[in-house]
């Protein structure tokens, strides 16, 4: 059951990454300590702190108000 949902992962990741890099500038707060990972079934990341800034000319606010 779990793995039948993997195609949705593939779809969402492409849209997410393209839209994110189109609309934001981003960097790790501390590249030496990017995250903490705990692995069981999933490999969860914790404490992944990033600086995120809206890019000049980004229309993501307009778009999200429309939808």
């Amino acid at each position, binding site marked *: 059951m779990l793995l039948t949902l993997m195609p949705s992962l593939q779809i969402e990741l492409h849209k997410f990454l393209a839209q994110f890099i189109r609309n934001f500038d981003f960097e790790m707060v501390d*590249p030496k300590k990017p995250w903490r990972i705990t692995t069981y079934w999933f490999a969860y990341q914790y404490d992944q702190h990033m600086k995120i800034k809206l890019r000049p000319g980004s229309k993501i606010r307009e778009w999200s108000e429309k939808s």
Partner: protein
Amino acid sequence: MLHLVSHPNNPLTRVCRGAGADTTSIGMRACLYFVAKYPDVYRKLQAEVDQFYTDNKLDRPISYVETQRLPYLQAVVKECTRLFPSIVYQLLRYAPNNFTVRGYKIPAGTHVGISPLAQNRDKEIWGQDADEFHPERWMQDEARTKYLDTSTMTFGGNGPRMCVGRNIALVSFLQSCDASNANAVASDRAA
């Protein structure tokens, strides 16, 4: 991003919210991590997406079908999920009779499985730079990409024991979503 507004009585929806959300959020964090870590990848990816927006005078969020026209974006997503698969646990199977792996006899009925992490970083498949983040490995030539696509254990496996629901998954996924959001995804597919 896709917002799921669910019908509360649909059991699939509950699985979507739990398992589907986990695999996706892990993938998102992995993508941001690797792209932030490699400035040359960051610049190249942003340039590709920006170019697509300019060329197509796009004034809305990019659709999934459109993202499939961005070769570098696809390579980056594949490389991020190769090095950091959302599910790292082995999916166990019973070993059949007369089962041998590289000279090791495995008794019938033994629980066996492959770690997605080990598979996705096997030097025999990926080469000496298996542990390195190198999206270009997916863009060498068609035959090589096909081979790597069938070797990666990120989207439900491959071969006779791959995820049986891979092709029907999307249909089920759409049926369990709110109609308006389902339409948004459906138009992505039809575009």
